């Protein structure tokens, strides 16, 4: 089976995000006064083949833990969608 994984990696709330702060300010300067607390993260998509959804979930979790996220400062969540092969 082939799955499309959509992975979102975000900074933990305890970690300061100067980039998000700069984006918040820039949006304010453009008149979007209603915006506060922008946090910039990372989004990845990948295709992977696996026996079933549980196996795909295990593999993506391993990938996130080993490489895609730095668990000292980041956390991740992902979704899996089965693709027609």
């Amino acid at each position, binding site marked *: 089976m082939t799955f499309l994984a959509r992975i979102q990696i975000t900074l933990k709330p305890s*970690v*300061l995000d*100067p980039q998000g702060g700069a984006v918040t300010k820039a949006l304010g300067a453009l008149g979007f006064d209603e915006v506060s607390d922008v946090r910039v993260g990372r989004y990845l998509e990948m295709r992977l083949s696996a026996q079933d959804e549980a196996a795909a979930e295990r593999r993506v979790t391993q990938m996130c833990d080993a*490489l895609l996220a*730095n668990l*000292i*400062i980041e956390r991740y969540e992902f979704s899996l969608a089965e693709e027609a092969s």
Partner: protein
Amino acid sequence: MRFAVTVFPGSNCDEDAAQAVARVLDAPVDLVWHQTATLDGYDAVIIPGGFSYGDYLRAGAIARFSPVMTAVAAHAAAGKPVLGICNGFQVLTEAGLLPGTLLPNDSLQFRCEFVSARVETTDTVFTCGYTKGQVIRLPIAHGQGAYYADDETLADLRRHDQIVFRYDGENPNGSADHIAGIVNRGRNVLGMMPHPERAVHELLGSSDGAPLFTSLLRSWERRVAHDA
């Protein structure tokens, strides 16, 4: 004493590090390509600055999976000195050889300038040639140098005298507790954001980095004499 300087795609301070070893210590030094799986025969390893793998994903995140990093981990486990400078520091944290990580500078600017750093401990093979509390001038050149660790880890670093350098005066990147460099519990793996290899002669604006290299040599000579 024989030195290895690891070279990743995107390393750019490897020659500077090798030159510092050769000129300050007159010691043999080799540039070692990251695909090399062994560091046998080397007494010290330097992981230089630069942008390994273009800093893709996170600085140091991909370099840590290079074959040479397995050799670096073995070298560190054997108690031999490992020095990570700038990107080398980032690689060492990503590899789990040092605690914490490096975040983008709080100013969001790439900072390239001389800074003052205080030597907080001389109880390492890297800093035994300085005096405790000595303020030295070293250049920095980084966009992602804000040392970060959770409070528990920071307390642990303080308790075990693992904070080796702190910025003196202005903190150029917003690092936790003004940290500029830390050592592991075994005291043989040092990571630091400032560049000692770029400050080994007055012609370079400072020679305050030179004692770091002479400290390594003296420590090694003492160890060899002791083992003999």
